[in-house]
C-alpha cells in the first residue's frame, strides 16, 4: 500500500491512520506496528524539519512479502542526506556526556533489520526492512 502525505506536522494523524490500515491488511502485530509507527514518525518529522525547501508530498509505502516487512519513504527535490552514514550514538555514555539529536536514527537501526538509502535526481528514498513474527 502506498500513499502521499503533505509535508507538514499535521499529516502525522493521517500517517498513523495509514499505518493502521496497513497493519490490518498485512496482519502486523502490535509490537511491529509500534516499530513502524516510531520509525515513520521519526523520519517524516525529520523530513519536515530538515528539508523545508521542498514542500512536495512525501510518499510512504508499506508492503509485506512472507515474513518480511518493507517500509519505504520518498522525499523529492531535496538535498542529499544519507541516513545510513549518520554516526552511531553512544547510548552507553553517561547522561551528562550525551549530545542531543541522532536518537531517532539510532532507534530505527535497532528496530529494523536494514536501512538503505538511495539518492537519485534529488530524490531521497529510504527503505527499511523488518522480519515479522510468523
Amino acid at each position, binding site marked *: 500500500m502506498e500513499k502521499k502525505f503533505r509535508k507538514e506536522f499535521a499529516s502525522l494523524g493521517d500517517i498513523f491512520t495509514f499505518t493502521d490500515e496497513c497493519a490490518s491488511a498485512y496482519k502486523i502485530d502490535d*509490537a511491529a506496528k*509500534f516499530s513502524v509507527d*516510531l520509525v515513520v*514518525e521519526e523520519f517524516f*518529522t525529520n523530513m519536515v524539519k530538515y528539508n523545508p525547501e521542498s514542500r512536495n508530498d512525501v510518499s510512504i509505502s508499506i508492503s509485506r512479502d512472507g515474513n518480511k516487512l518493507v517500509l519505504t519513504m520518498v522525499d523529492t527535490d531535496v538535498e542529499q542526506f544519507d541516513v545510513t552514514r549518520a554516526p552511531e550514538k553512544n547510548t552507553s555514555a553517561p*547522561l*551528562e556526556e550525551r549530545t542531543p539529536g541522532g536518537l*531517532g536514527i539510532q*532507534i530505527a537501526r*535497532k528496530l529494523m533489520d536494514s536501512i538503505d538509502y538511495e539518492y537519485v535526481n534529488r530524490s531521497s528514498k529510504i527503505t527499511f526492512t523488518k522480519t515479522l513474527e510468523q
Partner: protein
Amino acid sequence: MAIKTSTLDGGIGLIEPRGAIVGGDETVELRQAIADFVERNYEKLIIDLSKVTFLNSTGIGVLVSAQTTYAKKGWKVKLCGVNKNIDSIFVITKLTLVFDVSGTREEAVKSFS
C-alpha cells in the same frame, strides 16, 4: 491539556502526561511542568506514563533532560506506568540504566521512603 500535574504527600510532585509525546505542544507542556516543579523545589518527582500511548526521540529527550536536571541537584525523578512498547525503546537506547522505573505510581511513591 495533555498534561495533568498534582502533588502528593511527602513533597512529591506528580506529572501525568497523556496521549502521544512527539515534540508538539504536549512536549512543551511536559517540559514546562518539569521546570515548574524544579522551580518550586520539589525534590521528588514522579512522571506517570501510564496514559502515554506513543513517545518519540524528542519525548525521550525531555525525560532524559528531567533526569539530568534532578540528578545534578541530588534530587530524584521516577517514572512509572511504562507500557511494553515504550519500555522496549528504553531498553534499546539503554535508558533503563538511567531511568528509575517503578511499575505503578504506588510503588514509585513507596520507593521514595
